[in-house]
């Protein structure tokens, strides 16, 4: 591991200042991703700013049922919070489907959102990777891409975002509260995550020193009718090969509103706006669900070894929405 300086700031302003002053600094939260990557030489910060002492570990429930989740709230605490389980089951289910008990005890909410891709080439510094070393190439396209993106990728990079939690947050229209050198702002998840385009090394719109302080989840009245389903290669402790977070409101026999986000198919949690638009106003039937998700996936660009993600994702969307609405299949 490259030698680095370690700072433990006493407050948010100091943390932001430390982070902004030193290019290539990293905030350290639970460390379950950052420290692994430092050992592998993928992350080589000169300064590690430990945000563990900043508090930011409360969950505040507002009167409308919205949530403000402190950046440092542990994944395990968040998953079992009564309001989360009641108002947004998909959020709790997504968290509990991730990693292992030990990791969830250590991992934080903000850290989870900013974890890096599991693309094997990204994690191996002896190999080229455009994300890690811009311009060096993307061996995944010809090589191991079974778990990489079918949507939103680019010629430069087809990495997937590995978080389960972020998928459920995307479906819930969550935002992150950020404090940066220029002050405070909020970003929708859509604005936080960038698609790779020609610059896969830029994954988020955060600048040096930008600290996520909280995740804000607006009230979602039909969030109680929501679910997260994750498909994986073993029964537990595996990243998703496909996942779906969905919430649906059926009133008077028609879909009044619906939220669908897809995981493990794109460089960011993939909000399925097309599918949502297609469904609003329709009767909730399996065939309507299938037509909607197929419309969403029609823009996909699969590769030989990840093409199976298309029928898989379609099946899971149909299955989750059917279960939520009681539609027969």
């Amino acid at each position, binding site marked *: 591991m490259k030698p680095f300086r370690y700072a433990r700031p006493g407050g948010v302003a100091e943390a932001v200042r430390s982070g902004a002053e030193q290019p290539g600094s990293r905030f350290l939260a639970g460390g379950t991703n950052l420290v692994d990557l430092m050992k592998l030489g993928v992350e080589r910060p000169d300064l590690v700013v430990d945000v563990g002492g900043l508090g930011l570990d409360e969950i505040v429930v507002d009167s409308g049922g919205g949530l403000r989740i402190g950046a440092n709230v542990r994944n395990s605490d968040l998953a079992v919070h009564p309001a989360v389980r009641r108002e947004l089951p998909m959020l709790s289910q997504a968290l509990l489907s991730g990693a292992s008990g030990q990791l969830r005890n250590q991992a934080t909410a903000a850290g989870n959102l900013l974890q890096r891709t599991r693309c094997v080439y990204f994690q191996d510094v002896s190999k080229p990777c455009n994300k890690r070393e811009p311009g060096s190439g993307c061996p995944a396209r010809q090589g191991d891409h079974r778990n990489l993106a079918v949507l939103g990728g680019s010629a430069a990079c087809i990495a997937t975002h590995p978080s389960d939690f972020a998928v459920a947050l995307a479906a819930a229209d969550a935002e992150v509260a950020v404090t940066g050198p220029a002050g405070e702002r909020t970003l929708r998840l859509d604005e936080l995550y960038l698609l790779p385009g020609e610059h896969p090394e830029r994954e988020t719109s955060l600048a040096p020193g930008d600290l996520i302080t909280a995740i804000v989840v607006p009230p979602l009245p039909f969030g109680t009718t929501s679910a997260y389903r994750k498909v994986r290669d073993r029964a537990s402790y595996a990243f998703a090969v496909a996942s779906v977070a969905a919430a649906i409101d059926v009133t008077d026999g028609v879909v009044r509103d619906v939220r669908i986000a897809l995981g493990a198919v794109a460089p960011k949690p993939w909000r399925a706006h097309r599918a949502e638009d297609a469904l609003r106003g329709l009767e909730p039937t399996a065939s309507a669900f299938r037509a909607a998700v197929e419309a969403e996936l029609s823009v996909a660009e699969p590769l030989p070894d990840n093409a199976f993600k298309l029928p*898989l994702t379609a*099946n899971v969307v149909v299955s989750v929405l059917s279960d939520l609405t009681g539609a027969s299949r």
Partner: protein
Amino acid sequence: MTAITTRAVGSSPTRIEGTAKVTGAARYSTEQDHLGDVAYLWPVPATIAKGRVEAVDSDAVAGLPGVLAVLTPDNAPRLETPDDAELAVLQDHEVSYRGQFVAAVVATSLETAREAAASLHITYAEVPHDSELTENHPKLSKPEKVNPAFPTDTEDGDVDAALAAAAVTVDATYRTPPVHNNPMEPHASLAVWLGHELTLYDSLQGAFAAQQALAKLFALPPASVHVINEHVGGGFGSKGTVRLGAVLAAMAAREVGRPVKVVLGRQHMFTVVGYRTPTIQRVRLGADADGQLTAIEHAAIEQTSTVLEFAEQTTVATRIMYAAGSRRTSHRLAALDVPTPRWMRAPGECPGMFALESAMDELAVATGVDPVEIRIRNEPDVEPESGKPFSSRNLVACLREGAERFGWAARDPRPGVRRDGRWLVGTGVAASTYPSYVGPSTASAAAEPGGGFVVRISAADIGTGARTVLTQIAADALRVRVEEVRVEIGDSSFGQAALAGGSMGTASWGWAVTRAGERLRAALDEHGGDGRLEVHVDTAEEVKARTGFAYHAFGAQYAEARVDLDTGEVRVPRLLGVFGVGRIVNPRTARSQLIGGMTMGLSMALHEEGVLDPAFGDYVNHDFAGYHVAAAADVADIDAVWVDEQDEHVNPLGVKGIGEIGIVGTAAAVANAVFHATGVRVRDLPIRLDKLLGGLPG
């Protein structure tokens, strides 16, 4: 001391060192706190798959604070030529596979060694490589023998004529991927020199063989090398012989004049410790309409490296399993630019029986004969190829007992028709087998001055419970209670002994311990009292005299599989193994070996695959997030039982090895259950959802 008549063999004492292990008091190889001043070595893997090291720019890192030495092909001490070419580490500039160690940094801390190793600049002359095994690879050739010394090909009767005349035939090609040895404790070595005497603390399956190999490499008399492997965190064959970490540790410790520790990183485990070769296996079966076999052909294609030839004995189980009028088996091997494959739990039987037992299921489907019944119908009277009688063979009893316990009788043979909610449900069966090897061993037994007995043997307890069962065996031979016996193992100075491999530990060491105990008991009875008696035994002559029978263990495995209709996800809620494995010395540790093997078989069936990227020539998913092994949640109701089996020919204790048979047949049982559930026959492991998704009933 009181002579007793109750026997310890057959009872279930808990592991003798269990408390020490769970409290951390037990010291594994590199945890030798009594040694001060330890230095750390981190190896540098090649980043090309074939070519030469042109230059290593050591200067930039040699001056870093804490760096003690940089070992390169240019400056590494010269070794004698080893029998195992993998051990000639840093002896030349050739790169034969990606990940091969081409340099190493020794430093005062692990972090420094690792960082310096990462920044070491190496220039290569790269040449094109070829790392991908294919069915018609031009480099395929016939090895002289297959591991360890089986004939490469065998032929018995006219297979082609029998196939042409057969009422029913099966002709299918099965594939198993590279799978990687990953014991919990990675390979770990700690070398200390005192003058010209080398002590090596290492995580090995056999200290004595390691001592001999190291003595040869470093041109020392064997007595100047002392190897200690008191506790070992798993091996599976990958620690069967001394490995290059030990050589690096010994080399570096002499260079820097301090003890040196080498603990491999998880990523290294996917290249330098030996993995199971991928296989491409064609099986052709011919049978009459009732499923009676008339022909069996089993042809395996596999790989080795260009460093050394390791030819897995993939089709040997086919030579002994079923009666058939004709039979042909063969192995073809391609030496590719890949890491060297070696032993992994049940080399040969494990991949080979996946193919054979899948094909038997396909034959059952083709003939309409029940899969249990078809195996019973093809039960041979004698070992098919050799004509020798079996010392004991209880495959049929295992199949029947398993069918009874598993509730097989009511099984509807139609595939793809049972549903439970969104799950498709099916069941499958497969046979297991493993040879009952035995190797010569020496042991000593002594009456201790203060009372009690000590038995010493260079055995290794790789987590199996060997220390405990040897204590039971020794107590019976001495006719005393187990509490009166201390068994010391894991030390090359105790003399030659078989290694903890080939499932022969208990049979081989138990034999020697029995003889040592009996001899001491006789001497004590003769001389009376509790004098300072010590006896030494060597079973070489006796072991050599074991002949005349075919010695194998058999078993049957039953699996239930559930496959998610939406996703193709596979779960195995039930797995039952029934084994005929001779006398069981300790039911507790035996069950744990058997279900451990079955778990690893399940893992092979559903998860494990080293993913080769031919462009780089290595296995790219080289960590536990990328390379899946079965997690606790994948293993549901799993059980192993055994039938009563008395075998007076196999060895004096009547025991057969149980370390490996559990992994043999499991993958076929699961694949057969998946077929029964879905109607989809997966012939290439692992059975992942993407291979099922397209074929599931709508």
